[in-house]
């Protein structure tokens, strides 16, 4: 029996608090008014100066759903209070009524709390007074009146009769934890929560433990200790699952998802949010649903999954609107609008973001306003309407001025604004904005590194902890044995105990020191690894350039031979034509001139062919510009299949294989260029080259052992796939070989960095891993592989159109 009061912190985290009240078993949600309270602002700017989420949207939203339920409850409580026969029964009922009121109006909850407290004191009703004061303390915390809360809690510490009901004292400690937690004083908060946990664990009050764990985790999460936060959240979740408490489970899942997001595990974060949504719907926890939708929309924005960003953004906007919170609605609409623009639905995007701007302006919250204007800037930017984009970006930064906080995507907005200025010729402003963007990117990268280091050290710490736990268990066994012996030899007992304890203490200290040292080493190793990786990626690029060069030399030789031959012949033909003219044989001369013309056409054709090859090579070696251009994907496949083929043939004279192309005509551009798809030509070319090279390598390897009948074949196929029910249209490129295939046990690993089956020195092992990044991260596509040992391999690349 407890009431569970919740409100959200940065990134929609919940704090639970429990207040035990006799014969009452309700759980309800508590919300704060929607304005950014001063202490929350401080909270954020202190801890996360850079990746601040749009947090004001989280304080308010439970009100409506809770109100609906609580109003019914209040009605029935009012009836019961009117009929109450004794003073004590009435005081108990009023206390229940205060719990219900807390979610609707803090001021009235405090007012009635004070009255009920007076009444209970007048008739000296111990339980009534205790409950009234406990509720007052919690409500003061949420109200921000910490002095009053502290006074009440200190009073309760003395008031509670020792040993009478230890769950009361655990509630006092939990409330202390809450009070300090809200003020970002995590050390103190942790100390009190641990006291509460101690009592609850000893007495088996499991109904309180999961929310205790959840709140402890918040402190760790906010101070960047993600391993500990995860540990507590998982512990709480396990407990909630065991107790079948789906409400606690839903809240914990939202917070757990946040931690996962912080350590960069987006997949687990996504799963946890989705599960929270499911439970939220089942238990009618609208606030859980809302926060999960909001955070999912941000998560998908980061992943550039625009359809999902839109879907969840609109869901969050709808729910936020239903709660009457314009802030959350505006922020969600902005996200949805950007998602639309990224799907080239510009008109709809502009209309949607106009709504967002209207709402944001009226909400008067800087982060909100900034996000809505930045979204409009991005919508114009995506259409390359740079002049129109500039005022919106500027307005977005103007809204943030003086608040020394950054919203999500602020760095990107500066980068885009800089590009807008560059395109419109204002270079000094372009440079100034570029510098700001670079500064923000630097500071984000620093955080990113810390997070990666944490992730790496987590596994290590976990193992260490298990070791320590094992050591402690062993120690406890020893103590038990010693106790038995001590029955016989009383004095020796104390000595042994002391020694064991000292030993345990020293052991723990040593383990801690070792742990710290190892963590430092891990961090240093990580930094080195990252530097090495950058170098390796560069050398992979150079290696693939080398592979290309051999193919290009061969490719270029044939057209040049034709150019030379046809020009020589033409020279001879002109002499012959002149002779015929001198002899008066005009028909003969005319026929020769036809040949000369034909030769000149051939010279031109082969000259262009050579030119295209050289251009292709230059394009490959050029620095990556990260720009997507309309591209004829059929021509690109053809070009790289040939380059790969001739490259390998130039290197290995015994190389023989057939190549086959099956291209979808609808992808071959018409005169106006329809049919081209937006891709980064150079990057996709690199991916194709890599897969073709692997395919030819596989058939060559098989050719070394297969019989005469074996016909090595590498084929490429393109296919346009029409959109299926709202999904995006896409292009599918299938590359097939009939080589040796990939053994089942390594097929899952081929996209991992540094994985290679080629002999040392032949491959960097980065080719397919780069390909994977290019397709999935830069192009939002998918790459998959199917292989049967001995029969061949099929790579399938999907690119959205």
């Amino acid at each position, binding site marked *: 029996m407890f009431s569970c009061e919740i409100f959200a912190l940065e990134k929609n985290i919940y704090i639970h608090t429990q207040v035990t009240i006799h014969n009452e078993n309700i759980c309800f949600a508590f919300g704060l008014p929607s304005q950014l309270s001063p202490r929350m602002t401080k909270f954020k700017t202190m801890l996360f100066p850079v990746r601040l989420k749009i947090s004001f949207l989280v304080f308010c939203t439970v009100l409506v759903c809770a109100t609906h339920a609580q109003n019914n409850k209040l009605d029935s409580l009012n009836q019961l209070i009117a009929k109450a026969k004794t003073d004590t029964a009435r005081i108990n009922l009023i206390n229940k009524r205060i719990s219900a009121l807390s979610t609707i109006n803090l001021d009235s909850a405090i007012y009635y709390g004070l009255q009920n407290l007076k009444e209970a004191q007048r008739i000296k009703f111990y339980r009534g007074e205790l409950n009234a004061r406990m509720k007052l303390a919690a409500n003061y915390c949420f109200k921000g009146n910490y002095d009053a809360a502290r006074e009440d809690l200190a009073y309760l510490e003395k008031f509670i009769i020792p040993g009478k009901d230890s769950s009361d004292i655990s509630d006092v400690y939990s409330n202390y934890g809450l009070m300090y937690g809200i003020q970002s004083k995590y050390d103190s908060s942790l100390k009190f929560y641990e006291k509460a946990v101690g009592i609850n664990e000893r007495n088996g009050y499991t109904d309180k433990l999961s929310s205790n764990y959840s709140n402890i985790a918040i402190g760790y999460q906010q101070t960047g200790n993600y391993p500990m936060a995860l540990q507590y959240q998982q512990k709480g979740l396990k407990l909630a699952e065991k107790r079948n408490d789906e409400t606690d489970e839903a809240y914990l899942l939202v917070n757990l998802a946040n931690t996962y997001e912080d350590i960069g595990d987006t997949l687990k974060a996504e799963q946890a949010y989705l599960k929270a949504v499911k439970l939220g719907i089942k238990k009618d926890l609208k606030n859980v649903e809302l926060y999960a939708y909001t955070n999912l929309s941000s998560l998908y924005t980061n992943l550039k999954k625009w359809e999902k960003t839109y879907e969840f953004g609109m869901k969050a906007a709808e729910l936020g609107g239903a709660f009457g919170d314009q802030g959350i609605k505006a922020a969600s609409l902005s996200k949805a609008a950007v998602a639309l623009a990224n799907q080239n639905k510009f008109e709809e995007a502009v209309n949607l973001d106009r709504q967002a701007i209207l709402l944001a302006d009226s909400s008067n919250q800087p982060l909100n306003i900034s996000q809505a204007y930045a979204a409009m800037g991005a919508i114009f930017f995506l259409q390359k309407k740079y002049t129109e984009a500039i005022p919106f970006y500027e307005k977005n930064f103007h809204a943030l001025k003086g608040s020394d906080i950054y919203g999500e995507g602020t760095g990107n907005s500066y980068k885009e604004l800089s590009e807008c200025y560059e395109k419109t010729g204002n270079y000094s402003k372009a440079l100034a904005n570029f510098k700001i963007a670079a500064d923000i990117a630097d500071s984000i990268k620093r955080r990113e590194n810390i997070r990666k280091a944490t992730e790496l050290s987590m596994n290590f710490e976990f193992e260490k902890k298990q070791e320590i736990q094992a050591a402690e268990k062993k120690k406890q066994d020893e103590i038990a044995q010693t106790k038995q012996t001590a029955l016989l030899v009383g004095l020796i007992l104390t000595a042994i105990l002391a020694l064991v304890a000292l030993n345990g203490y020293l052991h723990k200290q040593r383990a801690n020191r070792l742990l710290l040292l190892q963590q430092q080493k891990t961090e240093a190793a990580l930094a080195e690894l990252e530097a090495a990786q950058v170098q390796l990626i560069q050398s992979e690029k150079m290696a693939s350039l080398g592979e290309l060069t051999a193919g290009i030399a061969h490719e270029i030789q044939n057209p040049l031979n034709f150019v030379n031959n046809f020009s020589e012949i033409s020279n001879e033909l002109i002499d012959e034509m002149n002779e015929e003219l001198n002899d008066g044989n005009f028909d003969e001369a005319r026929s020769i001139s036809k040949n000369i013309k034909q030769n000149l056409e051939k010279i031109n054709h*082969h000259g262009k062919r050579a030119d295209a090859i050289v251009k292709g090579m230059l394009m490959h070696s050029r620095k990556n510009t990260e720009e997507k251009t309309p591209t004829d994907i059929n021509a690109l496949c053809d070009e790289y299949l040939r380059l790969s083929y001739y490259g390998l043939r130039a290197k290995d004279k*015994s190389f023989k294989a057939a190549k086959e192309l099956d291209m979808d005509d609808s992808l071959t551009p018409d005169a106006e260029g329809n049919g081209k798809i937006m891709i980064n030509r150079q990057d996709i070319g690199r991916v194709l080259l890599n897969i073709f090279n692997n395919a030819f390598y596989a058939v060559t390897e098989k050719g070394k052992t297969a019989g005469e009948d074996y016909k090595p074949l590498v084929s490429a196929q393109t296919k346009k796939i029409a959109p299926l029910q709202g999904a995006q249209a896409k292009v599918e490129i299938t590359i097939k070989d009939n080589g040796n295939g990939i053994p089942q046990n390594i097929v899952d690993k081929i996209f991992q960095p540094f994985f290679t089956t080629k002999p040392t020195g032949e491959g960097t092992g980065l080719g397919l891993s780069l390909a994977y990044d290019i397709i999935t991260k830069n192009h939002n596509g998918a790459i998959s592989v199917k292989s049967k040992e001995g029969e061949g391999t099929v790579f399938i690349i999907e690119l959205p159109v």
Partner: protein
Amino acid sequence: MKILVVDDEKDIQTLFEQRFRREIKGHEMEFAFAFSGEEALAYINKHEHEVVLILSDINMPGMSGLVLLEKIKHLYAVPPPIVMMITAYGDSENYNKAIQLGADDFLTKPVDFVLLKEKLKHIIHV
């Protein structure tokens, strides 16, 4: 005297027809063209006794020039036509392999047509 030229580059036909325009006009030489090893074999099957000399590139998709050479020398025993191979510059590996398979002569790319013409005339007059 019929000469079969085998190469996957189609413009090779125009090139030969112009380089040897006088010889063709004077019916000194007659050329046929095939654009792959498979096509060449089909042509030889059809015109077994007409073809006296085969001039083949080595690097071709599908059946390579070396496989074609091997087949011709084995299948058409009495008497096998003369086969000249065209190899890329400095490609000693293919050169050795072609000798081993019984190639009668070699040309290196880029083809020196003055030299080729002399060789062909020599073969015809012998």
